[in-house]
């Protein structure tokens, strides 16, 4: 039986990438800017990430945190980024904005100290986001080749991984499998790598997470886990031969990359978990 390739639908980016979503992301460079970022997003139609980092990192941990924040902004599902910085943080918001901009992603910057405090920064951010969103809403989507789709798998130690990778490749998509990170940290790596969609395999009472801008297809690997949190899973994959399970997951991936919302998108989970490589100073 011939397997039909994915027919993803999405948005061409100026840098040649394609996204299956078209989000405006409000990204704080530092925990001190999360309140302003959230208030801007809440007043508009944008997504905001809340995180706890951005200052007093050192060494490899600094590079990792910086690369992760930059990668989230570069994810092809993000049509435009508003970087919100404070002004005195270690991972300077303005330089992060420049790094993202150099990769031909639409990015604006608001610094809270320079803008004149919380209220002024929120007002300035809202103006920018509303203007950018108006541009994003005018963009038309189109069908693109499945080879431009990168599907992320959040673990390597599950018997479903191999058949799933095969199934995705048969349908024309590229696959990235995370090794050496778990849970939310794995999702962050995949999103930063440019995956437009993440498949999360959860067993043994693991609860699924979402990710800002990147749909997570949450797959329960056993009946008990599925029953426990049925509403938060997109599907259960167990009890059938693994080849059939892989086909079910791939079918759902095909739907999600044509616009079907995942459970995490419906409930609005935008979890952000950064694995730290050394302590904060």
């Amino acid at each position, binding site marked *: 039986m011939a397997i039909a390739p994915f027919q993803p639908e999405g948005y061409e980016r100026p840098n040649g990438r394609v996204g299956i979503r078209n989000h405006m992301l409000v990204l704080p460079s530092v925990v001190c800017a999360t*309140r302003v970022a959230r208030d801007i997003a809440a007043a508009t139609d944008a997504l905001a990430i809340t995180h706890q980092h951005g200052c*007093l990192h050192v060494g490899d941990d600094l590079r990792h945190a910086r690369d992760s924040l930059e990668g989230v902004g570069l994810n092809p599902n993000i049509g435009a980024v508003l970087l919100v910085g404070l002004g005195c943080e270690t991972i300077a918001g303005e330089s992060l904005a420049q790094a993202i901009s150099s990769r031909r992603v639409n990015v604006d910057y608001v610094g809270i*100290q320079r803008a*004149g405090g919380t*209220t002024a920064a929120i007002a300035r951010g809202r103006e920018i986001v509303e203007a950018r969103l108006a541009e994003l809403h005018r963009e038309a989507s189109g069908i693109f080749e499945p080879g431009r789709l990168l599907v992320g798998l959040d673990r390597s130690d599950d018997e479903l991984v191999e058949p799933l990778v095969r199934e995705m490749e048969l349908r024309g998509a590229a696959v990235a499998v995370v090794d050496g990170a778990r849970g939310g940290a794995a999702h962050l790596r995949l999103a930063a790598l440019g995956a437009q969609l993440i498949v999360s395999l959860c067993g043994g*009472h693991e609860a699924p997470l979402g990710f800002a801008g990147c749909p997570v297809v949450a797959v329960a690997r056993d009946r008990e886990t599925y029953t426990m*949190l049925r509403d*938060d899973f997109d599907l259960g994959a167990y009890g059938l031969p693994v080849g059939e399970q892989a086909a079910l997951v791939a079918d759902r991936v095909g739907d999600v990359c044509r616009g079907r919302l995942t459970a995490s998108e419906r409930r609005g989970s935008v979890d952000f978990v950064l694995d730290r490589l050394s302590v*904060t100073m």
Partner: protein
Amino acid sequence: MLTGYPRDNGKWGVRNHVLVLPARAAANRAAELVAQYLPAVVAVAHEWENLPGDPDAGVITRTLAGFGANPNVGAVLLITVDSRDEQLAHELSARGQRVSVVAMSEHGGTVSTAEAARAVASELVMAAAASREPMPISALVVGLECGGSDGWSGITANPALGIASDRLVAEGASTILGEVPELVGAERFLAARAVTPEIGQEIVELINAFEHAVKGLGIDIRGAQPTPGNIAGGLTTIEEKSLGAARKAGTAAISGTLEYAGSPRGTGLYIMDTPGHDIEQMVGFVAGGCQLVAFTTGRGTPTGSPIAPCVKISTNSAVFGNMPGDIDIDAGGIAIGTETLTSVGESIYNALIAAASGVLTCSEVHGHREFAVRRVQ
């Protein structure tokens, strides 16, 4: 007059929040939804997943439990995923906190959990309702913090805060100094004030341990300590930042050292092992029992705590004028001679007592509720 909320365990709160606490990151969205449904409660979010084998499980559980058990919290609604998260409920109860648990596994998912939790949360709000009463100052624990420091910090706002801290300690209250990385170079200044030689030695060891860890790892801390903002503000080295930072703690005798999120056993001035990271530090202070934080800033930091009022003091008048509505008190007049350390110290003391007694601080007005838990592994 200082007023607050007496608690069954003998402590006093200066706010009366109902806190919705997710036991792990997968419960963040449910907690957030409860707070959207019911604005009378406050929710926090964090990044801890409670994955099996996490070496930081102990310190994080202790921090979350201490935070939830802070006397500013009248009741905690703990959102768990399943029974693996019950340890946190036990720790909250053991500290004398009123806690209700809603498990996501019993409701089939995030949204139905939030709906069920809403009803529980509204019951907790009613159950925790209380009136303010005159509060003994000995029950007050104030965190001393600086963020976005500059060349003025050690000359204006920090020594003025030190005067307020000395007065609080003299009147029987407690204050806590943290940010061990920002005490490197100030150990002689601090250890000489310890109430016993042993505590003096503990202070020196706390600071040395940090310095040795940094040297042992071969990490280059330049760019992190001092931060780019500190350097732009005129601070050159960690020693210079430290000598200015330590002035927040005035001249009082030092009663002891505390681990991260640890609680003082007596009253007086303590030093807590916290990082310089403003929010990890503030969460450590609040988890250790601080009901109130005094926070000096040179570059302009708007942040606050989800459950504790935070009084902001600018080190220079330019930043005070540039960030209207974010800073409670300006200490900049000390540098130009329109104010003195004594006059600003008194203003800070009065603002702390007023904030404790119910006056909203700038960060509370804006809803600044930043949250971050220190990892040690």
